[in-house]
């Protein structure tokens, strides 16, 4: 396949960015999208130019490192996958592909297509955990959890923290991300003792870090590579409301 790429380049956090155009020839339709970018970078480096910086690591759709807005869609034109799992057979020979970083106030651009998502870590540090010291837990079967609850908790816990939900939301809201963790822990008996504190602290931190409010457009759910449902946002809202009533 022959391709034209229009890629966002930005030297550092403070620099002004711009689009640059590159052409690529003979890309295998079986290669992944990031392997296509590897080929571009090999070309650039061979010519003495600096490669395009993008986040990636496991390349099997689970670490949540890769991002990229491709032709106007978070993680590109396929459903339920991350960018690293996107394959070139989803494009046509001769296509022009526009590649941008996540764009959201909470995720400043570090360089080119790489963004800073440490805000997600900060939100979780505010309360996205169960306080149990090593060694103090009881027997695993001492806590019975109905299968449907465990399954639902797993659905929420499947979040990989990639940030596609924020990037695709017109308000740059992190509600789906926060909801995933709050819902996962609220569904489990082990998570109940801290449920009130958790919901309040995480929502407050999200607001403090400049993420927008949720207006129920559902865009996050559509782009979530792990299919985390906005039903979890409903549970977060319930937990949050309860938390405020209780205090």
């Amino acid at each position, binding site marked *: 396949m022959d391709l034209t790429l229009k890629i966002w380049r930005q030297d550092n956090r403070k620099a002004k960015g711009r689009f640059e155009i590159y052409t690529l020839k003979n890309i*295998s339709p079986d290669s992944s999208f990031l392997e296509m970018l590897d080929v571009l970078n090999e070309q650039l*480096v061979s010519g003495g130019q600096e490669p395009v910086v993008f986040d990636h690591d*496991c390349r*099997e759709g689970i670490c949540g490192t890769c991002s990229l807005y491709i032709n106007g869609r978070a993680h590109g034109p396929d459903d339920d996958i991350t960018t690293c799992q996107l394959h070139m057979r989803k494009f046509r020979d001769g296509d022009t592909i526009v590649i941008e970083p996540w764009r959201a106030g909470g995720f400043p651009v*570090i360089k080119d297509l790489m963004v800073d998502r440490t805000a997600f870590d900060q939100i979780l540090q505010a309360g*996205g955990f169960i306080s149990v*010291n090593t*060694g103090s837990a009881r027997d695993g079967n001492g806590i019975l959890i109905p299968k449907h609850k465990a399954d639902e908790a797993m659905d929420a816990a499947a979040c990989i923290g990639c940030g596609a939900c924020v990037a695709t939301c017109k308000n740059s809201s992190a509600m789906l991300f926060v909801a995933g963790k709050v819902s996962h822990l609220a569904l489990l008996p082990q998570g109940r003792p801290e449920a009130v504190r958790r919901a309040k602290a995480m929502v407050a931190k999200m607001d403090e870090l400049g993420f927008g409010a949720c207006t129920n457009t559902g865009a996050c759910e559509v782009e979530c590579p792990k299919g985390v449902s906005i039903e979890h946002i409903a549970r977060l809202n319930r937990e949050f409301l309860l938390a405020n009533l209780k205090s």
Partner: protein
Amino acid sequence: MKLNAKIPSGPLTEKWSLYKSAQNLVNPANKRKFDIIVVGTGLAGASAAASLGELGFKVKNFCYQDSPRRAHSIAAQGGINAAKNYQNDGDSIYRLFYDTIKGGDYRAREANVYRLAEVSNQIIDQCVGQGVPFARDYGGYLDNRSFGGALVSRTFYARGQTGQQLLLGAYGALNRQIAAGNIKLYNRTEMMDIILVDGIARGIVTRNLETGELESHFGHAVVLATGGYGNVYFLSTNAMGSNASAIWKAYKKGAAFANPAFVQIHPTCIPVHGASQSKLTLMSESLRNDGRIWVPKEKEDAEKIRTGKLKPTDLPEEKRDYYLERRYPAFGNLVPRDVASRAAKERCDAGYGVGSGQAVYLDFKDALNRLGKNVIEERYGNLFQMYEKIVDENPYQTPMMIYPAIHYTMGGLWVDYELMTTIPGLFSIGEANFSDHGANRLGASALMQGLADGYFVLPFTIQNYLAGQLSVARMDPAKQPEFGQAIESVREWNDKLMGIKGTRTVDSIHKELGLAMWDHVGMGRNRAGLEEGIEKIRKVRELFWSEVRIPGTANAMNIELEKANRVADFLELGELIAKDALHREESCGGHFREEHAMSDGEAKRDDEHFKYVGAWEYKGPGQEPELTREPLDYEFIQVKTRNYKE
């Protein structure tokens, strides 16, 4: 070099309890006087950092990723072993210990492995406590499945994302301690070297990957939890950033490196698609619970399938060779990984491979008929989806194609029973050390070992060391000459790399190294091949140091410099792997020497000459490394030939 494994005396079942009751501890008020550096935030690193923080130590935790949650433990799919015996199928701590020693082909320490089996149950409890959503049955009890090398179901799992869920649990514990002020996290930060003061590990040099800034950090102890070195082979199931630099720098500072040749090749990975392939994707071993592995019985049929003239689904049963079931009736498709990998290679080399010729089938037809699509989807849905996205074929309709790939490294830094390396004050945990898996790791045991080391072993054993360090005050890196010198030598090293200004990209050279490793130091090894491999590795290393091209500068973000630093270390480690493989004139576990095979092709171990841990010591640039042997004395179990046939 003298190796003292510090194995406690006493009966096997009591060693760990006796150790714990006699070791030195640090009193609660003194814990905050100690700084501990933990490099890595995977299962081992995050669990250790969090547990040490809970105890009151001051921890500095480093990761090269943008967040601790991205460490490659996240990608483990299938599960985690524990000897709970919830299934009432005859499991016990002893059986888990025995299976692990046997699976490792009798090249691991009894005392370490028994301790691992002993703490395995606590890990499950701890993870459930943290909210890890393990699979449950309809009664609400924890569910299990079986894995290779075991006759019981002892594997706990969270769909096909067990590693992710366990890591998120440990990451939660880490976050809690960061919020409490006990841990300071440094993300996008790579460790560049270890700092020794009077021969004792006292700190590290780091490079901030965003700014290029070099810094030094002090710690009363340094813990390396930096994972394995599979990326020496370029193509592996490791993450793109997974690297050996931390343990390699430790080796070059005097830490012994044990059993580097023990590399695990995983039998069920998605086959290579072409030249631009950047990494390989694993399909969980759990698939072998329900999938049956086969190739055509006749070469003509294999040829027809390869050329697209015959569909695998059209080949009748009697023309299929379920070669694992044929060769290993007792364990069938659930033989250990090394056995399954070699059997696949043997069939493909003999001309029975499908796809590109380097692939075999993993077929769910019978399981789909027996259990229905819903059950299979529930068990493996995300894996099937992943396969379809990558290969563009639907595994519900046509059998999966799989081929072995580099996956895990049993070798690593030599550590004693306390997980300390041969450098005082330098510890190593998880895949980075060599300790528990012998010559082959069983499925679902990596997660177990990482968390055992981090939650339940290191937090105790490190105190035995620290108790003797109370008189050592925190050092100020600005005033301690060793720290400044260490930064300077890293700067010079980086400048040297930047100054080569050749014509070749880092990746193109890394691929050459990987090919030499796979061809000569891969699944089947022999003397001539290994010697040729060492020559090739040396040539690639020369090529690297004369021809590599790194654009940009060392004083800012530079992703090519990051890769070059890692590949420079792989180029040295690759040779040590080959040397270790060359010296070990036997076949055991993942190390298969073609000269040492039984008449039926099975591995031929040589316990008389090689029942030891081979620990290599660095002797300076251009010098031959020195081998020290730690004998493995099996006091409690009888050493046997592994037999998965009956």
